[in-house]
């Protein structure tokens, strides 16, 4: 479970998380082009729906986080997309709460940004060169970094709140293990699939080049 409920973490952690989340959100929203809002919204909705699927893992089942995948596909836009998804989950499903939202958003968005920063360039090259094995491997890494990053952040925010959470944090870290494995496998498949069917979604430089005339068009419209 990636959502920390309301009232668990201490005030300093709440405030730190809130400030970082608001700053990142402001930056990302300012960067977000109006013509890209529908893309961001559709992908946010897609991740919301995908996170509802119970994927079997051993005797139990897990719900995917997909923040690594979001980082690959959306880059900075992942921050508002994650924020909106978290608001909806908090209000309509009761995961997390209004004040702890910032902490939860940072816990999920930071790994997504790390994935975007570390892997999207390499993935773009791998797709351009048609290196199948590398594409799958990078996809798997994206899923792994997403889950392990979020697990680390959740445990750190618990431990930073109170040393008494140490035991619980260790147990929570262990419960992330099956999710990390399944998420890595599924993300690898998703990335492999998209690389075959719609590689332009993952190509970094080429998409930007292709978009440039379009962006000028936007500037005229705006």
């Amino acid at each position, binding site marked *: *479970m990636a959502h920390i*409920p*309301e*009232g*668990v973490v201490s*005030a300093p952690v*709440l405030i730190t998380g809130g400030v970082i989340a608001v700053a990142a*959100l402001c930056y990302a*929203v300012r960067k*977000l082009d*109006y*013509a890209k*809002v*529908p893309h*961001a*919204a*559709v992908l946010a*909705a*897609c991740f*919301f*729906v*995908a996170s*509802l*699927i119970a*994927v*079997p*893992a051993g005797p139990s089942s897990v719900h995917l986080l*997909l923040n690594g995948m979001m980082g690959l596909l959306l880059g900075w836009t992942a921050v508002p*997309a994650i*924020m*909106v998804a978290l*608001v*909806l989950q908090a*209000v*309509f*499903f*009761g995961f997390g*709460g*209004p*004040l702890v939202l910032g902490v939860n958003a940072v816990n999920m968005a930071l790994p997504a940004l790390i994935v975007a920063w570390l892997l999207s360039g390499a993935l773009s090259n791998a797709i351009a060169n048609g290196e199948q094995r590398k594409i799958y491997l990078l996809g798997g890494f994206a899923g792994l970094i997403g889950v392990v990053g979020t697990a680390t952040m959740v445990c750190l925010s*618990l431990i930073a709140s109170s*040393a*008494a*959470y140490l*035991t*619980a944090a260790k147990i*929570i870290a262990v*419960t992330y293990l099956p999710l990390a494995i399944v998420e890595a*496998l*599924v993300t*690898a*498949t*998703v990335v492999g*699939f*998209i690389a075959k*069917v719609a590689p332009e*979604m993952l190509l970094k430089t080429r998409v930007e080049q292709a978009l440039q005339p379009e962006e000028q068009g*936007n500037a005229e*419209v*705006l």
Partner: protein
Amino acid sequence: MLASQLQAQHHLSRFSLSDPRVNILAAGIFALVAVLLTQWPALMLLLGLALLFNVMAGTRWRSVIKRLLAFETFMLLLVLMLPFSMPGETWFRLFGLSATIEGASQALTILLRANAVVLALLALLAIREPVSLGYGAAALGFPAKLIHLFMMTVRYIQVLGDEFQRLRNAMKARAFEPASNWHTWRSYGWLMGMLLVRSMERAQRIVDAMRCRGFDGSLYLRSQLLWRKSDSLLLLGLSLLALVPLVWQQFLE
């Protein structure tokens, strides 16, 4: 079924007819009070208030219980360990570990607080239509781009939820049974990949259609929000109710 129905089931009540800003502000005040409370009798009162809100909002008990069960596993994990890991006076011993009174009271505090907030969110926000919450947030001054993102996400959750169900039915028709194996994970990967690719295409179509209709970078919110006297009274009443536990805590100290 899936995500196509976000809104919680409820009877018509004051909470679902008021200005959405009332609900958002009241939920904010409630959460703030919950964080400020530290003593368990006051938190008990807060939980009682959250239940009262649910009665007033007319939420179905099934959705209340479903919602509580969903997050209780995480809470129990956190809370069960607390008495054993906080230093303090020994309460009882189990397998050589001593549980402390301080730890137990801390655990009770956290459990009450989290439950109260979850129930209050259900009664105040989850019963509203997501779109009307978006209008409320816009009227409260949230950035327009974020509101548009929120509104469109809400819309496409329904569309993609249906799309997902269709793909899933197609898999079912081909005798797909999810199990813990490589075949399942790969099939789910393809399912999500397909969903993503189709949603990207859909997004491009939406942008094209919006351009056709003269999209100039701003969408217009249907501003039907009307703050009435009864809304002020409702907000005042809810805030005063939420503040009662805080005042009581001052007395207890």
